[in-house]
């Protein structure tokens, strides 16, 4: 472990790596403050840029975007009462009232410090849990990998908002799209209809950009206009003078960091839920719960610490088992794959420079959040006023060029647009996109492991099913799939009852 940490540190010594992290954090802050632009879109748009970089540098930049965009939604939540990202919804409950009370610098400072600490705790969890869990993957055979991929899709599909059937349809559609092109073992061609651009399957980056950027650009154009809000004025006091106040809330910090990390590790839950759970826990244990909702610093600290702690937590199942916990990590899995990296034990041993360099880069990202976030907070309020008539064409152009840049193929642009149409359809029909992305990303793994498993039992489906329930690890994962489906049904019934009432 010490050796691997040193290898990771050596990767960080590269000035290009530090530059990549700074650019990632800056870009992430920008994306987070612009309502409608999500961390997922930011990571998807940046993947083409990182394609020609060394893997650890590219991943560090993606990590910077993820960490910073999760945090920076709080800036607009506090100053403008607009959550830049869904993760910051719980933050505005007390952040904006604090601003209205003339404490915007205090709210911003506490949110920033809290985010940084939450992120650092979750990175520590990733650093110590990651290699341990990755070793577990050595006991995985083809049936376990197959059922693990199905579990990842099932859990996200069943816990997605709205009807569970739609989540499962999206997951299955993603898997079906992933079968386009050559069969992974026999080499037979499927669903390509003679188009050479589809022979190698749907290009992953084009698909990710299409699914996440096109629907957002359409939405931006449909709800045209800039946001004109009067931002709360920042008081003259230095934000760093609030640091001692933060440490008076040690219990809140620790509790919120643990909640965020644990919520991040569980696939399908997400940062906004973590924020609300920590907010609720802080309110219950507060000596002055009546202040919550009226400008309580405890509320801001709890929400921000917790939602930022999700970042490291969600990377634990991603890097160890290849199971993304949310849409951003699903897109990051695509980022790992285009660099030829596979999650699991090998990532932490053979590719220690990449994995540990990446994990340690997250430490730097979380530290850089403080100076960069506090410095740019007041300017970010101006960025939000950029009209969508300017922003939408630039994002669309970046999506097109980014798609083209991966293989230098104009055909990929059309593939990206086709996937964009599917993503738009998902929005129109209120179907979740995350299971679709996950199906697309994990489809090849699921199919090739299924075929290998079947080959081991000479194609006997009954024997394969027996394998799934007779091998301890696969049996555990099958049980988890059943629990996820049951949870989805319970959640759906609760949701229906709420609608009916």
């Amino acid at each position, binding site marked *: 472990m010490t050796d691997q940490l040193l290898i990771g540190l050596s990767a960080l010594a590269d000035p290009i790596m530090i530059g990549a992290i700074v650019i990632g954090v800056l870009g992430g802050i920008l994306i987070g403050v612009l309502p409608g632009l999500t961390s997922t879109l930011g990571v998807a748009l940046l993947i083409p*840029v990182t*394609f*020609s970089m060394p893997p650890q540098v590219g991943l560090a930049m993606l990590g910077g975007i993820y960490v910073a965009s999760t945090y920076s939604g709080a800036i607009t939540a506090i100053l403008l009462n607009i959550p830049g990202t869904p993760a910051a919804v719980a933050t505005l409950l007390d952040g904006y009232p604090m601003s209205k009370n003339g404490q915007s610098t205090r709210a911003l400072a506490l949110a920033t410090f809290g985010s940084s600490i939450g992120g650092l705790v979750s990175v520590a969890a990733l650093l110590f849990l990651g290699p341990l869990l990755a070793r577990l993957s050595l006991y995985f055979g083809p049936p376990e990998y197959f059922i693990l991929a199905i579990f990842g899709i099932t859990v996200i599909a069943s816990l997605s908002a*709205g*009807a569970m*059937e*739609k989540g*499962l*349809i999206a997951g*299955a*559609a993603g*898997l*079906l799209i992933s*079968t386009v092109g050559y*069969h992974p073992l*026999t080499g*037979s061609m*499927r*669903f390509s209809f003679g188009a050479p651009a589809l022979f190698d399957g749907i290009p992953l980056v084009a698909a990710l950009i299409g699914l996440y950027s*096109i629907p957002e*650009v*359409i*939405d931006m*154009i*449909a*709800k*045209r206009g800039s946001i004109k809000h009067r931002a709360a004025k920042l008081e003259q006091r230095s934000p760093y003078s609030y640091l001692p106040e933060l440490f008076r809330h040690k219990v809140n910090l620790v509790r919120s960091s643990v909640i965020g990390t644990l919520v991040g590790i569980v696939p399908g839950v997400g940062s906004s839920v973590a924020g609300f759970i920590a907010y609720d826990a802080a309110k219950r244990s507060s000596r002055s719960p009546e202040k919550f909702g009226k400008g309580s610093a405890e509320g801001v600290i709890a929400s921000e610490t917790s939602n930022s702690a999700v970042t490291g937590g969600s990377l634990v199942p991603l890097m160890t088992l290849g199971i993304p916990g949310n849409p951003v990590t699903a897109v990051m899995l695509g980022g790992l794959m285009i660099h030829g990296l596979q999650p699991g034990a090998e990532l932490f041993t053979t590719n220690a420079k990449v994995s540990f360099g990446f994990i340690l880069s997250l430490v730097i990202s979380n530290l850089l959040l403080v100076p960069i976030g506090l410095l740019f907070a007041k300017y970010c309020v101006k960025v939000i006023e950029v*009209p*969508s*008539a*300017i922003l*939408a*064409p*630039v994002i*669309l*152009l*970046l999506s*097109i*060029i980014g798609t*083209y*840049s991966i293989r*230098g193929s*104009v055909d990929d*642009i*059309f593939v990206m*647009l086709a996937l*964009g*149409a599917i993503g*738009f359809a998902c*929005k*129109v*029909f*209120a*179907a979740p996109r995350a299971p679709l992305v996950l199906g697309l990303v994990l489809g090849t793994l*699921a*199919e090739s492991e*299924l*075929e290998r498993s*079947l080959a081991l039992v000479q194609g006997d489906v009954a024997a394969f099913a027996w394998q799934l329930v007779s091998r301890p690890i696969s049996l555990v994962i099958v049980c988890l799939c059943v629990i996820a489906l049951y949870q989805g049904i319970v959640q759906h019934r609760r949701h229906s009852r709420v*609608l009916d009432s």
Partner: protein
Amino acid sequence: MRTLHRDIVLSVLVLLVSVTAGWVAFHYPSDSSWFPRVLTVFLGLMAMILLVRSLKTTGDVDIFDGQAAQARAAGIVFAAAILYALSIQFVSFEIVNFLFLVVMMYVLGQRNPIVIACVATVAMLLIKLLFFVLLDVSRPPGSWF
């Protein structure tokens, strides 16, 4: 229930897709199409469950409200992107990028010519610098200008 009609339309569409994809998949050799066959059957089943559940649901049926603006926006985005992709095969990348940004900004309501010219020029130069100078991506084949 706002989502009633929307779910019916979705389930019918998915059913059509699953039947079509299934028909294609069942014509491939079985050793290469086991997975897509299972998936199309699963998709069809899920679509039928969604359809039955949507038909059973009672209540108001006002659906697709506010979707006209979305449809218009989608039309603009797809038309612009397709035109762009076709153009860069013939016209120089710099010209296409500049024109794309100018036309899109104008169509979306930006009327200040100085803002349009400045944004289009700066964005075009930054994209050129990032992708074609720093990242050394091969240029699109446009050769007319």
